[in-house]
């Protein structure tokens, strides 16, 4: 850590070393401890600005109503239409269609037997009324 880098970091992050980049924090603190008068003056200026900003840091927030509104819009579980149940129903439907199709394919084709109709038309009680 040299004077130039120390000043750069001080101007960017202020005098609170917890805000400094993790890797340069310890070196910065050590540099400030072994400071000269002008380093101490720079730190004091940065600290004054930090304190000014901190003076408005914590404002009480009443977020109860807003929280409720946000949570009302949060995703909801739908037990009636649970995703797994939907998948299971869809699988059953597909399986049913396949079974039906397969059974239809395996069933013997109906014979084109017209005997029944011929017999029906030739039945003696047709046309013999009276």
């Amino acid at each position: 850590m040299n004077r130039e880098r120390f000043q750069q970091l001080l101007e960017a992050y202020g005098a609170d070393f917890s805000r400094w980049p993790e890797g340069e924090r310890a070196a910065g603190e050590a540099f400030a401890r072994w400071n000269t008068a002008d380093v101490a003056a720079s730190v004091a200026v940065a600290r004054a600005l930090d304190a000014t900003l901190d003076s408005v840091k914590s404002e009480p927030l009443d977020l109860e109503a807003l929280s409720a509104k946000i949570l009302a819009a949060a995703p909801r579980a739908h037990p009636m239409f649970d995703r797994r149940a939907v998948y299971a129903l869809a699988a059953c439907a597909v399986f049913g269609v396949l079974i039906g199709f397969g059974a239809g394919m395996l069933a013997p084709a109906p014979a084109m037997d017209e005997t029944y109709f011929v017999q029906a038309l030739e039945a003696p009680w047709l046309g013999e009324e009276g």
Partner: protein
Amino acid sequence: MVDPDAEYVRKAAEGDTLAASALVRRHLPRMVGFARRMLNDATEAEDVAQEVFLRAWREAPNWRPGAAKFETWMHRVALNLCYDRLRRRRETPDADAGLAVADPAPLPSDAWLAQQRAARVQAALAQLPDRQRAAITLVHFQDCSNIAAADMLEVSVEALESLLARGRRTLKAALADVAQDLMGGADGPSS
């Protein structure tokens, strides 16, 4: 990179209201605080925070941990919403914008002084260019690390440091008398 919110986000996406509540409890105050600093308007800040969460609920089922932390993603969304509102403000200036509503109740002098000081600081922050204000808000008020803040702003750490330094320089000049009062003049800034 371990995202402490990843599990909550996954559960919230499945409709776990406790997980959603935990996310709101953890992040809503930070989102509102961030948007307040950016917009200097409490009502607009709450609107921004609400919109961030509505987007979070929409994105939650598709959330894949690893790309960015959930908090980083939320800050990016909030930042973009704030930028949009600030842009609209500049395009259609509102005559009432920035006017503080007077509190009718009389304040003790210390409280009055603190309120005046806060108003000065807020006004000085509001005068900063948007990206400098965002950098200072993230690092100073949101306590984000330099890497997280740079990630949220989608800039390098060097660029973040430049934004911070320029912003703080402007604030130091604008608030020199406030700082002097606050430090009691003992070790106040000589600038």
